[in-house]
């Protein structure tokens, strides 16, 4: 742009933050796609100036969701991420968290931010994400052709409020700054406008502040810009500017809603990154590690080659059903077997039935689902009745009671009553009833060698007091087996000579 006055110097001109040519556009490669008089062009220009002033061009990442601003990436020569409708704040969150040195700007319209993306903006603000949000509010859906926005003024006609916005039908204009100002985390919330020269200059200052806050590591900053949309409003650009100034500001008062720029404590997102070699330790994957060094008991690994224990443990929630199964699986692993543990699971923290399938096998386990158990540990009567009929003939049932219900006896399985809860009560806690059963099972079947439980105990029992109680319960369970001789049939657990 040559000047014919050689003594003149450019004081305002095309910002270097804009690409010289908008290569991604097919034609008009120096114009924006915005309509004549559109506020987006002004906001983009002010944003470019703020980026330039702060010297953050290389660090800036512009997040452009859907709306008229979708092509922000065509203009600003910064890192650009185009995203889904309304999701800018979620994307910005992730970018900033992983790249804390970047300056992340989410540029959103009113449909994007205040309708479809309401959840994302509220939660990004509430988490205090260190990002800058530019919210261009023109009270209309521009790109899709003039439908009602959440910020559309009362009585305004749009293509989806052809008779005007009626609060009884369409609700009221959504006031984003006021809404976000109810949250504790945001650092800077300001509503500005493009309704006059003065307002435009104030908008420039607010945008610069929102970016500067991020440069300083302060938290969430948002600038809401009341912006003209002459095309959809059906006004000429000057009239639209007047509408912003005189009408929009009556519904959306200008001003600052939060400014803790001076008092907010800068936050640094960077974290300590451990050496790669530390990972196994951090993840608990190293060599089995008992804090006392005694946990890594070596069990002579001489699995019985035909072992195929298909175990169902069942009871009600709180009886330690799943833990009993986990002990078994862990012990089976210690003894050199292939194991699997498959729990029933349910809504957390609610009472109800609970069961798990455990397999301990000399060969790789085909299915972890135990549909034909050869061992059933039934910790209550409903569990006994539920699983008894699925038992493999010759299987073993340990049942938590003094005696077996008459109508359950006589099947081709051995049912041994072990009053595990009562025994555990006498030991001092019903909670170790599962360990009584475990002791009884190991004694009755010999399915695992002595010492196989050591590792499981060390891994799963963290308190010394429980450790002693558990050991006592295991012993009591073993003893109980010998008192119970009322079994209707000899135990014959599938093809395992170690049992019986």
């Amino acid at each position: 742009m040559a000047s014919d006055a050689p003594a003149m110097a450019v004081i305002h001109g095309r910002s270097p933050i804009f690409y010289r040519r908008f290569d991604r556009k097919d034609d008009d490669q120096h114009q924006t796609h915005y309509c004549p008089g559109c506020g987006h062009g002004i906001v983009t220009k002010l944003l470019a100036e703020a980026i330039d002033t702060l010297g953050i061009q290389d660090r800036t990442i512009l997040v452009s969701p859907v709306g008229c601003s979708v092509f922000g990436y065509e203009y600003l020569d910064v890192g650009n991420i185009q995203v889904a409708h309304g999701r800018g704040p979620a994307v910005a969150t992730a970018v900033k968290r992983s790249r804390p040195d970047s300056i992340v700007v989410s540029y959103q319209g009113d449909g994007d931010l205040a309708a479809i993306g309401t959840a994302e903006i509220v939660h990004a603000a509430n988490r205090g994400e260190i990002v800058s949000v530019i919210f261009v509010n023109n009270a209309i859906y521009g790109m899709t052709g003039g439908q009602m926005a959440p910020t559309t003024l009362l009585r305004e006609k749009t293509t989806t409020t052809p008779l005007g916005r009626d609060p009884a039908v369409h609700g009221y204009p959504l006031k984003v700054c006021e809404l976000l100002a109810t949250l504790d985390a945001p650092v800077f919330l300001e509503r500005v406008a493009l309704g006059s020269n003065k307002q435009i200059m104030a908008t420039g200052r607010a945008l610069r502040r929102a970016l500067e806050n991020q440069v300083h590591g302060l938290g969430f900053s948002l600038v809401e810009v009341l912006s003209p949309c002459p095309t959809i409003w059906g006004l000429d650009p000057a009239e639209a500017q007047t509408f912003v100034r005189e009408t929009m500001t009556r519904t959306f008062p200008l001003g600052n809603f939060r400014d803790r720029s001076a008092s907010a404590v800068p936050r640094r997102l960077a974290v300590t990154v451990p050496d790669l070699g530390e990972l196994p330790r951090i993840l608990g994957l190293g060599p089995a590690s008992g804090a006392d060094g005694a946990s890594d008991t070596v069990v002579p690994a001489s699995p019985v080659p035909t072992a195929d224990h298909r175990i169902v443990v069942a009871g009600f929630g709180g009886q330690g059903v799943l833990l009993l199964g986990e002990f078994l699986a862990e012990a089976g692993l210690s003894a050199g077997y292939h194991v699997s543990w498959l729990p029933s699971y349910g809504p957390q923290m609610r009472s109800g039935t609970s069961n798990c399938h455990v397999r301990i096998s000399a060969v790789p386990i085909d299915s972890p689902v135990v549909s034909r158990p050869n061992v059933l540990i039934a910790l209550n009567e409903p569990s006994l009745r539920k699983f008894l009929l699925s038992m493999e003939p010759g299987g073993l049932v340990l049942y938590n009671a003094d005696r077996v219900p008459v109508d359950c006896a006589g099947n081709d399985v051995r049912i041994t009553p072990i009053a595990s809860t009562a025994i555990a009560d006498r030991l001092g806690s019903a909670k170790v009833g599962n360990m009584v059963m475990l002791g009884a099972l190991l004694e009755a079947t010999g399915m695992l060698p002595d010492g196989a439980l050591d590792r499981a105990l060390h891994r799963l029992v963290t308190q010394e007091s429980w450790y002693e109680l558990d050991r006592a319960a295991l012993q009591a369970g073993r003893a109980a087996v010998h008192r119970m001789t009322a079994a209707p049939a000899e135990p014959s657990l599938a093809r395992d000579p170690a049992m019986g």
Partner: protein
Amino acid sequence: MDVARDRGAVAIDRDECKGCGLCVEACPPRVLRLSAELNRYGYHPAEYLGSGCTACGICYYVCPEPGGITVLRRQVA
């Protein structure tokens, strides 16, 4: 008016201008107008009357286009 004594001047990229007229409305010394001519896109672009610019920069800020308007200021000799 004496061009040589103006504090500033405005250069308008007539093919970037969309003729919205915001600069014409905003200009305090009223030295901008929409041209009677059409640019290649069919808009009446803004044009500088040729003198009277104070280099206030307001037209630059109200212009929605990145490079539609350039404002120059006379350097102090």
